């Protein structure tokens, strides 16, 4: 059984690390998942979990994963938006955990937009 004692130990450890995270850097990338009724019903929770876990595992300190409400494009949910300073917002549609991991690998780490999952390519079809 997990106890609060363990949390105290984690805190002790973390307090010795100075500046463990840079939240305010200029290169901060924001990843936003639509988590309104439409998003949740079409599978946004596993997408969010996959994104958060991958960002944690790969220690991407310059990426923050957050949620938003209904973006107004319910038929394209689950939707993930990637916002990088100085660049145009990228909107990924009809996501699932596998596609989300591809976005982490290609876009968040290597900087290449995964165009096959973006809304513009979905609208061309």
């Amino acid at each position, binding site marked *: 059984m997990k106890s609060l004692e363990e*949390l105290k130990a*984690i805190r002790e450890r*973390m307090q010795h690390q100075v500046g463990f995270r840079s939240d305010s850097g200029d290169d901060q990338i924001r990843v936003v998942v639509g*988590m309104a*009724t439409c998003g*949740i019903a079409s599978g946004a929770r596993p997408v*969010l979990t996959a994104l958060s876990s991958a960002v944690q595992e790969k220690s991407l300190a310059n990426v923050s994963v*957050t949620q938003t*409400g*209904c973006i107004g494009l319910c038929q394209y949910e689950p939707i993930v938006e990637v916002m990088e300073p100085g660049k145009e917002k990228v909107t990924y549609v009809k996501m699932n955990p596998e596609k989300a991991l591809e976005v982490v690998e290609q876009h968040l780490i290597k900087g290449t937009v995964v165009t096959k999952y973006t809304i513009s390519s979905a609208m061309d079809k």
Partner: protein
Amino acid sequence: MMPEISLNVLDVAQNSVRANASLIEILLTVDHARDLITIVIKDNGCGMTKEQLDTVEDPFFTTRTTRKIGLGIPFFKMAAESTGGSFNIESTVNVGTTTTATFVISHIDRMPIGDMNCTIHSLITLNPTLDFVYTYDFDGLAFTLDTRQFREILGDIGFDEPEISQYIMNYLKENSFEVDKGIQI
């Protein structure tokens, strides 16, 4: 429709976040003797007037501005009532709102509870400034997670720090297992 009860909880709890609640209490009770699952979501947010309360179960009522349809509450209500269970919302302006849903366990139309730990973890890490109290009672054996206890220990270290987020997930998983022994309903 939501495929799991836990997704309804995730969705409906967002209403409490938007109501500017600082404390959201979620209670999940599984009671086989009464053949009933009870879910209570209680917040200390802005609450609703009598008029708003009358329209809240109507799909064509919503406070958001992106479109004119809100399905969160109607989905939750329908999911509960279709099992022979019940649905109720009580609200007082500036005091808060309490939503209660019951599901008849043995009814064929009852959805699985689903991954409640994931729902609670998402709520906590996505709203790191809010406090959550989650109680899981399985046939009389219960555990409670209270983020105010975490906050007291952590000081200014955020719940969204990777190590803390991982601790919270493990805390949920291990303590839930203590009460339900891994039985999925």
